[in-house]
Each structure stands twice: as structure tokens, then as C-alpha cells.
């Protein structure tokens, strides 16, 4: 069976205590605590794995321990041609280990596999589990003034409505940014006031002149505690809607991933028509998301004309969503067991007409953008994500495909209707902003084709199976959906009474942030906003920037307009009177 090969190989390295199978292509191997780093490293580098997610879990009520689950997608390193696992052997292997509640310490995997860094920082925030040997032990998710011994996701920690008192701002502990050594380095904080449409974040850029030499960032200003909320008071029907609101752009991918995780945990197969419609809607989402990002990548470099045209086309994709789901942004049609709303013949016909418009016009505008030498010079060679850095940090989506690595969940682990659909994975070499935008353009084209194929191939079946299902407590599974920015991964362990025991939702961008630091290095300050934008977390311009010159101790507060203007024109550096 699938995965056995990897378990066997792993067995030669470390002692496996127990193997459990969740579904056809997901197995879990329980290893001893001390073997954890080696087990993960072995699968990651020697067997060709990428880190999909890591889930800490409070299982004291089940087995008197805390547990960690490192889920790896076994697909091959993909660093050179042929470095890939055969299509029918790709699978997910999860390394599980148990931590005693008396020690709360586990050996960090990060020194061996850098991709784990954020996950292990989060394990401390949420569960108080300490990664021994983790180079960076700062808080990640919770705010700096969060009470020291309160770990919200422990089952006995707190009521989900509890909000600790905030400290006055002058009492608030300082967050320590990682700063490079050396004199003459200028500290440029970006944010935290707004920065992004859906994720406010604070970036600290360390500059020498106008060149960024390093960067650090603090995110999660909008942590909403959804996982805790769902565990405490939601049933599966409600969770789908909550998951759809995780993100303001790729929410639908979250909704499907969340519901599919629950479906997988009980091996529930949904009708083919429902599968097809889920794919159609998620591809529509990709259309509007990619158009948004390409548009913004033009806007942030001052190309308003192209931006307006791209948004004009984007409106068609929003219309398309409205047509087939009744909502422009939230599609709200996923329920456990299938879908709530079918697509009629009339709607299909109209959709095909709209798709045609999108396809032609996207080509026209892209052609014009490619022709624009000024635009190209702003995109090319900027914000390079090195291939090896990408291999080490497991980024996802156009971010990694733009670095020449062929990772796409739709292709590696085809879910739903993707088993029957033909499409080419968009891979571009180069790793710069241009490569990432090119990937997006190619995906726009393939999305249109995927939607067409779905319309053609979807059978006339029911769209929902009888919803009388029984969840089995302690069963868990992983579900993944290739959202516009990469795979959204949801992990669900079921509890009793139709509730979840643990819901771990990992958005695509979570895997993309840790390597951003490397993308910043060596670039011009004027490109900072563009680089963040090309990751597609959102557009990034700056509300307000404080610039401090360490040497002269001079500081200056820049307005949004100052930095935006510099980003667009690259003239009149806002830093010049500080030098």
C-alpha cells in the first residue's frame, strides 16, 4: 500500500513504536521523543518530503500526554529533473510523538529542518511546549503582553470567551527584532498600522543606504482564536462557514479543506458532481485572487493604467462567482457530505460566456504589461527566492513555483475532481517577482481550462449524500486544497457529540512568511512593498514609517504617501536627509 515504503525506510533509522493509517494516502508513525528530529529530517531531506503542517495537541484526556504531529508531504525534493517521487507513491507521512505533561519539553527539529521554525514557536504560544534547541524562541502568535502562563489551546486553560486585560502601551514588553550586526544600519519599521488588506503586520527593514540588508517581522495582529472557538462551541455545519471566513480572498479553499478533513476522518466519499462544483468554485476563486495580485503588483510600482484594466477583468470573475453561488466572495455552499447548491444549465451557459471574455481580455492586458519595459524592469531580478532556501522552508503556491520547483497539491495529491482533469503545473525559473507573476498568469489560463473541463465532465448525480454520518472520536485526518497562494491545510481530530476535538488550520501564507526574510536581502527599499506584494499575502504599502539612523540617532516619520511615492517613482529617497 501507499506510504509503506517510507515507513519501512524510516524504520531503519529510528525505532517506530506504532503505525496507524488514516486513509489511503495518510499514515502516522509514532516515534520516541528523542528520535523526533532525526525522523523528520530523514523524511524531509533523504526521502524527499516537504513540511505540510505541524499540529501540537493536548491529548491528556486521551493518553495523558501532549502530542506533536509533523505532517510531511512525500513528493520528492524536486531540485532537479527527475528528483521526484512516482505519482502513485506520493502520500503524507505524519511523525507523531508524545510529550509528558511533567516536562513539557521536546527536542527542536528546526536546526535540522528550518521549515519547522514557526510551528515550533507557535507550539509554545498555544500549548506551552518548549522546543529545546530552537534558535528563535520569541512569541509568534500571541501578543507580547499576553499573560505568561496562559496557554490558550490547552483544554483546561481558559474559557474561549476569556480576554486577558491588556497592558498599557508603555508597560507592554518590547518585541525583540533580530537585527544584523554592523554600524550605519538604518532601521525601517513598516507598519503595524495597516500594511495589508487582510493581515496587518509589522516589518522591520534594516537598511544600508537604500539597500535592505536584512528584515524581521511581527505578524498575527489579528489572531482571532478561531480554533478555540470551533473546538468549544461549533458543530461541523457551522465550522464550514467559520473556515470560509479565515481569509478575505481564499476563504472558499479553507471551507473545502476544513470540511474535507472532517469527511476524510470518517472516510466519507462525496458525489462526483459535488466534487466538480467544489473544484469550479475554487478555481473561480483563483481567478479573482490572481487578478487581484497581478493588478496590485502593477499598482505598487505605479502602473495605474494596467491596474485598472486588470481590475476591470477581475470584475467578470466576481460576477461569475455571483452567478454560480449567489455571492461574490463567500460562496457558502459547502456542507459535510457535499454541497447545498447545484449549478443549472442556464448558469453554465452564461459562465462559459464570461470565461471566454476573461480568457481573451487577460491575454490582451498581459501582453500589454509584458510590452512595458519600465514595468518589466521593476519586476525582473527583484525579491529573489533562492531555490535552496525554498527547499529548506517549504513555501507553497506561486511563491515556490516561481523558483522552479514543481509543487502543486492539485498535481501532487489530486483531490476531488482533479483526478480526472488535465492541466499543466505552472513552473517558472528565476525566483523573482516577475517569475511569480508569470506563474499567476499561467494559472489564470489553466483555471479557465479547468473550469471548462469540469462543466463538460461533471456527471448528473446528486450533490449531497445522506448526511446521517457518525463521527468517530479520536479519528483524525489532513485535508489540503490548493488555494491561490498555495495549499491550505486543515487537520481535524474528531471529538464526541459531533464536535471537533482539535482543529488546526494552516493558511498558505503561513508557510511563505519565514523565507520572506531571504527575499528581502539585497533589494532596494523602494521594492520592499512590491516583494511583500508578490508573495500575495495582500498588498503592502505603508501607513506610516519611522526611520532611525543608528549612527546619527536621527529619526524621521514618513507618511504613507512618502513611501508609496518612492515605491512608484524610485526618486527622492525618503532617507536622504538622514545620511
Amino acid at each position, binding site marked *: 500500500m501507499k506510504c509503506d515504503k517510507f515507513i519501512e525506510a524510516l524504520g531503519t533509522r529510528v525505532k517506530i513504536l506504532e503505525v496507524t493509517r488514516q486513509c489511503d494516502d495518510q499514515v502516522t508513525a509514532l516515534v520516541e521523543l528523542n528520535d523526533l528530529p532525526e525522523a523528520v529530517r530523514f523524511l524531509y531531506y533523504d526521502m524527499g518530503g516537504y513540511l505540510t503542517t505541524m499540529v501540537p495537541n493536548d491529548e491528556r484526556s486521551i493518553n495523558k500526554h501532549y502530542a506533536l504531529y509533523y505532517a510531511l508531504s512525500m513528493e520528492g525534493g524536486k531540485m532537479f529533473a527527475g528528483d521526484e517521487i512516482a505519482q502513485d507513491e506520493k502520500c503524507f507521512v505524519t511523525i507523531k510523538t508524545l510529550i509528558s505533561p511533567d516536562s513539557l519539553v521536546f527536542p527542536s527539529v528546526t536546526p535540522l529542518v528550518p521549515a519547522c521554525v514557526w510551528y515550533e514557536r507557535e507550539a509554545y504560544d498555544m500549548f506551552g511546549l518548549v522546543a529545546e534547541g530552537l534558535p528563535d524562541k520569541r512569541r509568534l502568535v500571541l501578543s507580547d503582553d499576553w499573560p505568561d502562563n496562559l496557554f490558550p489551546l490547552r483544554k483546561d486553560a481558559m474559557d474561549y470567551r476569556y480576554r486577558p486585560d491588556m497592558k498599557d502601551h508603555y508597560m507592554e514588553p518590547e518585541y525583540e527584532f533580530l537585527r544584523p550586526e554592523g554600524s550605519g544600519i538604518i532601521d525601517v519599521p513598516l507598519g503595524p498600522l495597516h500594511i495589508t488588506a487582510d493581515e496587518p503586520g509589522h516589518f522591520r527593514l534594516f537598511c544600508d543606504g537604500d539597500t535592505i540588508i536584512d528584515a524581521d517581522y511581527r505578524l498575527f495582529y489579528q489572531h482571532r482564536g478561531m480554533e478555540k472557538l470551533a473546538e468549544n462551541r461549533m458543530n461541523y*455545519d*457551522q465550522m464550514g*462557514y*467559520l473556515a470560509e*471566513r479565515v481569509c478575505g480572498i481564499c476563504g472558499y479553499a479553507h471551507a473545502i479543506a476544513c470540511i474535507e478533513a472532517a469527511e476524510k476522518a470518517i472516510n466519507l466519499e462525496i458525489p462526483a458532481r459535488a466534487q466538480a462544483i467544489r473544484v469550479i468554485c475554487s478555481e473561480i476563486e483563483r481567478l479573482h485572487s490572481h487578478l487581484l495580485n497581478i493588478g496590485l503588483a502593477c499598482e505598487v510600482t505605479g502602473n495605474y*493604467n*494596467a491596474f485598472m*484594466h486588470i481590475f*476591470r477583468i477581475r470584475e467578470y470573475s466576481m*460576477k461569475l462567482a*455571483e*452567478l454560480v*453561488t*449567489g*455571492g461574490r466572495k*463567500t460562496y*457558502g455552499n459547502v456542507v459535510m457530505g457535499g454541497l*447545498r447548491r447545484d449549478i443549472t444549465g442556464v448558469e453554465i451557459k452564461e459562465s462559459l460566456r464570461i470565461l471566454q471574455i476573461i480568457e481573451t481580455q487577460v491575454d*490582451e*492586458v498581459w*501582453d*500589454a*504589461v509584458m*510590452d*512595458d519595459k519600465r514595468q518589466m524592469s521593476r519586476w525582473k531580478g527583484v525579491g529573489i527566492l533562492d531555490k535552496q532556501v525554498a527547499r529548506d522552508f517549504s513555501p507553497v503556491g506561486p511563491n515556490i513555483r516561481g523558483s522552479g520547483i514543481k509543487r502543486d497539491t492539485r498535481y501532487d495529491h489530486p483531490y476531488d475532481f482533479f483526478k480526472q482533469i488535465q492541466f499543466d503545473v505552472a513552473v517558472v525559473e528565476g525566483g523573482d517577482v516577475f517569475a511569480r507573476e508569470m506563474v499567476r498568469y499561467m494559472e489564470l489560463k489553466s483555471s479557465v481550462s479547468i473550469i471548462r473541463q469540469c462543466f463538460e465532465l461533471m456527471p448528473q448525480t446528486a450533490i449531497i449524500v445522506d448526511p446521517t454520518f457518525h463521527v468517530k472520536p479520536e479519528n483524525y485526518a489532513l485535508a489540503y486544497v490548493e488555494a491561490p497562494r498555495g495549499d491550505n491545510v486543515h487537520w481535524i481530530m474528531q471529538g464526541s457529540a459531533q464536535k471537533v476535538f482539535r482543529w488546526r488550520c494552516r493558511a498558505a501564507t503561513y508557510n511563505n512568511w519565514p523565507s520572506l526574510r531571504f527575499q528581502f536581502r539585497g533589494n532596494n527599499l523602494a521594492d520592499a512593498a512590491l516583494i511583500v506584494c508578490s508573495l500575495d499575502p495582500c498588498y503592502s504599502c505603508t501607513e506610516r514609517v519611522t526611520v532611525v539612523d543608528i549612527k546619527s540617532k536621527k529619526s524621521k516619520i514618513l507618511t504613507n504617501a512618502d513611501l508609496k511615492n518612492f515605491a512608484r517613482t524610485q526618486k527622492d529617497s525618503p532617507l536622504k536627509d538622514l545620511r
Partner: protein
Amino acid sequence: MMKLLDISKKYGEITHKYPFEPYKVSDNFRGKPAYIFDLCIGCAACGIACPSNAITVQFNDDKSKLIWEFDCGRCIFCGRCDEVCPTGAIKLSEEFELAVKFDKSALIQRGELDTQYCTTCHKPFSAKRLVKYSFECLSKANVSEKRLEEAKNYLCMCPTCKKTATVATFTGGKEMVIE
């Protein structure tokens, strides 16, 4: 650059004059749920289905009315209420202009339904309309006159009294009509 200008020329003006002209949404648009009080029977199915608790169905303080209340500020336009409502009293409409000026209470819609009191213990337990509706359904269901008459009494009892009555029938060894 010139190419972009050509595109502009080709497609011309595409903006709408909204709000000076109406904006047409697609059929089956999921807009604000519209409530038809006359059809509502107070069964609370919508309140149970609503994932975001936008709809509540509760007695008022002195329990003289069953209050159906919808808070548009909480609604996520999912359409669950529309699906489960047995009488079509709530349906998603095409309305999307939901902003209110300063007054948040304008987002709230209420319906007050008369309370049904239990014929045995006289406690309030449901809405009059729900009892009436259940009876009408039964009348259409081709059951015997006698059974219908029994149902009439039965429907007007609160769940607790119903339970007691059933237990009493069992333990009393009385015969029951089962059809």
C-alpha cells in the same frame, strides 16, 4: 504603454452610474433574508439552523409573546434559514444595500407571535400558529376523525405534560389507537 491605451479605447466606458441607477444582481443572489411575518409559525427551525445566531426565537419576559428576531448585523447570508423554513416565511432577497445611519437597531427585525399555553399545566410552550399549522398538516394527512380529535388535544399540551400523559396511558393499561 500604447497597447494599454488601445485596450481602453476598445472597451470604452465600463463603470456603472450606481447609485444613480440601480445595480442589477444575478438571479439567486444571496442578499438580505426577507421575512414575511404572516407566514411565520414560530417553529424556530431557522434559529437552530443559523450558524451565526443571527436569528433567535425566544419568549419575551412575561412569556406572553414568542419573539422572532433577526439581526442583520450578524447575518452571513448563507441561506440556511431559507432552506429549513417549512412555510417560506424567510427567503433570501436581492437586497444588498444594508448600511444604516448611526442607528444599529435599524438592523434588527422582529416578529411577535401569540403564545400557546398548555391546556393541562397552563404554562407557555409554543406559538399558537405552530399548533395550528401542525393541526392543518395532520388534517391533510388522511387520518381518521377520531385520531384527529385526539391530536387536537395532544398538540395543545406542552412536552412535559405530553410525556406524563403518555406514561400514564402506558402504566394505566389503557389501549391506544395506533394507526
